[in-house]
């Protein structure tokens, strides 16, 4: 397999089992935040080279949302965390 991701629930799985759901770095603004803040949250993205943080959905596995920290240059994966644990202030 070209790319293997270690799901915290399912173990080492091929990239084909996942759906990449976008940048996990932007933080959702408050409902009453300015239009500029919402525009930035919805449309504006950095395009960094190197270490990135993304939402991955394990669609063909546990169907949980995960946060994957990886390097888009070397393909090294640093951490895979359940998005709920991450939201609750968990690891990584």
């Amino acid at each position, binding site marked *: *397999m070209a790319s293997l991701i270690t799901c915290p*629930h*399912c*173990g*080492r*799985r*091929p990239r*084909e*089992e996942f759906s990449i759901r976008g940048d996990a770095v932007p933080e959702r603004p408050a409902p009453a935040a300015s239009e500029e803040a919402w525009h930035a949250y919805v449309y504006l993205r950095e395009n960094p080279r190197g270490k990135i943080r993304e939402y991955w959905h394990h*669609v*063909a*596995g*546990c*169907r*949980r949302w995960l946060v994957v920290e990886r390097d888009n240059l070397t393909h090294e994966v640093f951490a895979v965390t359940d998005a709920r644990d991450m939201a609750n202030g968990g690891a990584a």
Partner: protein
Amino acid sequence: MSISFIHRHILEDRMSGYEPSPNVNHLTVIRRPVIFSAIAHAGHEVSVAEALSLVENIVARSVSPSDWLVVSQSTDAGTIATSLAAIPGLSFAEQSDGQVLMALSGPDVRTILAKCVAVDLHADVFAEGFSAPMMICRVAGNLARTGADTFEIIVPRSYAGYVFDELREAGREHAVTRGFGE
């Protein structure tokens, strides 16, 4: 002989042809299993897992930390629904008509499944009794090891024909036969 619509299995048409008796490598399609999808409410994951392990005549296939497929080949759906309804913090829905259960067994089962799944099935890491959701022939399904040389596969009904054909193709070099089982 007429066969009523409700008992007509989705793989019925794929069972015709001449296969005098099962070979050592054999694919069994379970004709009428009872399958429920069960999900624990937040905070009830551990107690529900424990309660499911105590229900008689079922096996709970692992899907996620809060999500199972409850399978029975010996008890009717109504009895199982009653048992599940008694478990606090659990929601469930019957999936018997939405999922297809197959069992692949024989000495070459690992070689055959190696063509179908990308997960290590060595007994040291995928032991008897173990189950997990995974891509099976590129279809999201559930695989369980039910014996040293026996695995059970659950896939959605609408993909079952394709997965069945792929398993047959993967098993051709090992002379896999197929048939319905109870």
